[in-house]
């Protein structure tokens, strides 16, 4: 009598196949029972790896990115795409053009940067403003935000002030290299700046803030409350944190 091998028994256990042989072979039935016990063992061990995650924050982040049509491209081939290839190719080409323009606009002295600062500026610098923010219509990451500003901050202090954010809104703070701070928020948001100060009155949706790592002190105020303060003494985060890592802190407004 030829017994079933382990792979065949596993396929039976997993409902992928059936073998009449099992009816008459006690040894193979015993092997199958052992595999069922092993399933429970593996399942229990894997469950130990699971950690809670904030689904509502994820929902809001994904929805914002989907709504804005933002997504990274490349390195994954979709299984099924409706017959709109030509449209997507064009849109990707347009996206590539935008990214290229954004890259050029980041170069000091670039004519693209000069053009962008004249054409895309959300509002004229206010009187008394020493540094005009650089418009950032195409942020470095593929976030969903439609608009934003950047501000050169060679040294602290830096105050970032966010107003108008509604309950449930997500604020992502990312630590970045260099000496520029930035705020990105959904279309319709308003931005102002002064020396050492960035301010945004935002509409509903996710707000992303870039803070330069080396600049101290830095504070983030949201709705009149201090959410984050970074000084020589260290980082203090009294805001409603939902996720924190060395590169990013995510808040959700209660």
């Amino acid at each position: 009598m030829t017994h079933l091998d382990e792979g065949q028994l596993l396929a039976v256990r997993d409902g992928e196949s059936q073998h009449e042989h099992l009816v008459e072979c006690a040894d193979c039935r015993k092997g199958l029972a052992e595999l069922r016990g092993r399933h429970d063992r593996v399942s229990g061990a894997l469950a130990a790896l699971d950690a809670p995650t904030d689904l509502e924050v994820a929902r809001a982040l994904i929805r914002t990115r989907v709504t804005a049509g933002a997504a990274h491209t490349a390195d994954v081939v979709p299984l099924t795409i409706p017959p709109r290839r030509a449209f997507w190719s064009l849109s990707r080409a347009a996206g590539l053009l935008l990214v290229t323009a954004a890259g050029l606009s980041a170069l000091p002295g670039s004519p693209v940067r000069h053009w962008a600062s004249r054409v895309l500026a959300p509002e004229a610098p206010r009187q008394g403003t020493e540094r005009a923010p650089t418009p950032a219509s195409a942020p470095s990451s593929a976030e969903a935000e439609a608009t934003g500003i950047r501000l050169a901050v060679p040294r602290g202090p830096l105050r970032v002030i966010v107003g108008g954010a509604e309950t449930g809104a997500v604020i992502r703070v990312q630590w970045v290299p260099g000496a520029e701070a930035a705020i990105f928020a959904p279309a319709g948001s308003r931005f102002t700046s002064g020396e050492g100060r960035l301010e945004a009155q935002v509409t509903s949706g996710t707000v992303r803030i870039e803070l330069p790592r080396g600049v101290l002190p830095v504070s983030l105020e949201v709705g009149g409350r201090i959410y984050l303060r970074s000084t020589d003494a260290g980082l203090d985060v009294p805001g409603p944190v939902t996720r924190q890592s060395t590169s990013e802190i995510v808040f959700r407004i209660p």
Partner: protein
Amino acid sequence: MDFDRLFDDAYPPLVRYCQRLTGDRDAAEDVAQEAMVRLFANEVQGPPPAVRAWLFKTATHLVRDRYRVDENRRRLLQENPVTPSPVEGPERSFQRKTERELARKALEKLADRDREMLLLRYEGFSYKEIADVVHVAASSVGTLLARAERRFVEALEGGLETT
């Protein structure tokens, strides 16, 4: 495609799979969110099982691309915090921590493909779907999975003996 329904159905298992695969919660969330965004951006359509398979396949590829380097993976695993639940006593918390570390180490002893196959199977994917993700013949999935499972359990028990 209804966003909320798809999110509710697909995202929790997807992020769980990514957590198990990467050993890093932040990385898992980034990958799972990216896969969801791509799903909508590419307007992927089809019956729910096919859409779900697409999501997991995309997430698997993203993990491979972003977290393939062993050194990086080890770093991520070391940084993976084990946060005790506030309602747990220290004994239970310690036990959970130990179980988690054992399972993580056992998973890390598997080859990448075996790990992916094992985790996909325990998310309920069929052998055919698994074969499609890891690029093997469907007829060999049973044998490969059996080996992966056996090695995982052996690594778990080996870890228990040395604990």
